[in-house]
């Protein structure tokens, strides 16, 4: 059994951060559902409504993302995304092996280091490359009729659309892995709870362990 005496709650995610996470969740889910409908995979909203929802949500995301960029730079949170190779191997080894042996996570979460090395590189690629590419191609796709005015007559709709599609597959893949990875906390829902309340229960490495406490019963 996990001994709660060895755990402590830390406030990991601020209110805006949590709001941004869940807003983005909603937007991405809507974009994936409507996007794949527009692609012709199934009928749910109907093509016309799917396009309208997709356009509205896409533009909303773009604007919301600008607030996120502002937030990440003014709070210095961007430092959480600086990639590192230190302990990368340990983390990979943990997920491939240690987790099955019940070993402790090699890089526990801390307030000033929320992301382990694997998360740092994943979220950096996501926030700095994949999402911006998706937003840029989405914006271009949406503005197709204005390309001549924007001086982009030479652009190919097919190229833009196919990059956008490939990006959607990449995001869907991320979502699949992400939803699974959040179950790997010390309980299945620990990480999810943290993203809702802001408080994450982590191992208190400062605490005195059970065996260290002298008891009369022993």
């Amino acid at each position, binding site marked *: 059994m996990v001994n709660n005496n060895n755990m402590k709650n830390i406030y990991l995610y601020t209110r805006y951060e949590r709001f941004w996470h869940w807003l983005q969740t909603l937007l991405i889910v809507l974009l994936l559902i409507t996007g794949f409908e527009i692609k012709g995979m199934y009928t749910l909203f109907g093509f016309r409504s799917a396009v309208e929802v997709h356009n509205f949500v896409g533009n909303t995301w773009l604007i919301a993302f600008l607030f996120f960029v502002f937030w990440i730079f003014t709070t210095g949170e961007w430092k959480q995304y600086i990639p590192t190779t230190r302990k990368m191997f340990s983390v990979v080894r943990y997920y491939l092996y240690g987790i099955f042996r019940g070993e402790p996570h090699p890089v526990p979460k801390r307030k000033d280091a929320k992301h382990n090395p694997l998360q740092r590189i994943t979220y950096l690629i996501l926030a700095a490359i994949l999402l911006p590419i998706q937003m840029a191609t989405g914006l271009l796709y949406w503005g197709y009729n204005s390309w001549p005015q924007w001086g982009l007559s030479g652009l190919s709709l097919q190229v833009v659309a196919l990059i956008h599609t490939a990006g959607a597959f990449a995001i869907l893949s991320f979502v699949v892995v992400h939803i699974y990875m959040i*179950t790997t906390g010390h309980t299945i829902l620990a990480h999810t709870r943290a993203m809702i309340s802001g408080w994450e229960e982590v191992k208190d490495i400062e605490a005195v362990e059970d065996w260290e406490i002298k008891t009369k019963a022993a």
Partner: protein
Amino acid sequence: MNVLSNEARCTSCHAGYGWKGKDFDFADQTKVDCLVCHEQTGTYKKFPAGAGNPVKEPKVFPGNQKEYLPPEWNKVAQSVGRPTRKNCGTCHFFGGGGDGVKHGDLDSSLMKPNKALDVHMGKDGQNFDCIRCHSTTLHNIAGRVYTTPASEHRKSLIEDDLASKITCESCHSSTPHKQDAKANDHTDKVACQSCHIPTFARVNPTKMWWDWSTAGKKKDGKPYAEKGEFGKPVYDTKKGNFVWAKNVVPEYHWFNGSIEHLTVNDTIDPGKPVKINRPVGDKDDPNSRIFPFKVHRGNQPYDKINKNLVIPQLFPKGKDDQTAYWKKYDWNKAIAFGMEYAGLKYSGEFDFVKTEYVFPTTHMVAPKDNVVACIECHARSDGRLANLTGFYMPGRDASKVIDFAGWGVVLACLAGVLIHALGRVFTRGNGEKEN
């Protein structure tokens, strides 16, 4: 099939009023019948095979068993006025010798249409006459001039209220939908008609197929005719087999407003359907739009050796005519006579070839609630624009490689996490080891 050698019949509508023989001057504008367009009594009737002339004595036309009476000239002449739908429709609704034979979007149902059939002409709607759009300047009628691309005249009436070619945009502008409506983004590539005329021949049927090769069959040694589903002829000894249809979905082509025609002098390839006319346009031409057409298909005689279409003489020139098809039912004789009459070579050997003829669809504009839905074109397969290729259309086009790779990665991720989850279940390694 051609007017030549059949003038007496065709000139009842086609220019040639008072035609008597080969030296008739078709360019002479004094030989235009004023009354057919302007008389308002409705009693001025041309005898079907009278070269555009009414009868002088009461006479029965054997084709329809109707008796034609000579006009009361004083009444007819004094009634002249602004042309009505009836004046125009007398010829234009009955092109090809009957109601809805030629155009799919012009037939007698437009005499008194409701709004559902034609939002402009509907009696319960705008109630437009033909000439509300087909305005005139000194008898030059605005409308179709297939030698001139429409785009050159794609301007509003505010810019030029005497534009010679009226288009939808003349009144509605090129951004007629609500602000920011996606439909406004389509008008640079898609003609209004493509979405706003979901089907043509919505009330009366129109002829879609004419097979001349089966003509000439007789019952009990006599020519006969059979009627089909819509009360329309499906077989006629004179003309062969017909197929009629209602609520026809148009076929779509790039179109800049011009149509090219094949002539009897052009060499054809009988191995595939011969396009007797062809809409001019291309996806890369900024003046072309995707436009709806009725495509009338047929099977008609051609010269097997010289590889060209032929002009058979159909209409008998009199009781003693020995060559007309509608008298002797002998194609060879009819073709030989017609071609000689036209001054063209004929090898003496003929066969039948599949042909296609396009009619632009522009009337029978439906109310806005009945427009073509997005998905009818933006569909993976079998969409209305499935035949128009070479450009990327959202919802229709995709890259097989990206789809395959994309789903491959997604499924690999799914499989990966499932295997990992099973591993955790079996080792019960969910976080900290039990003490």
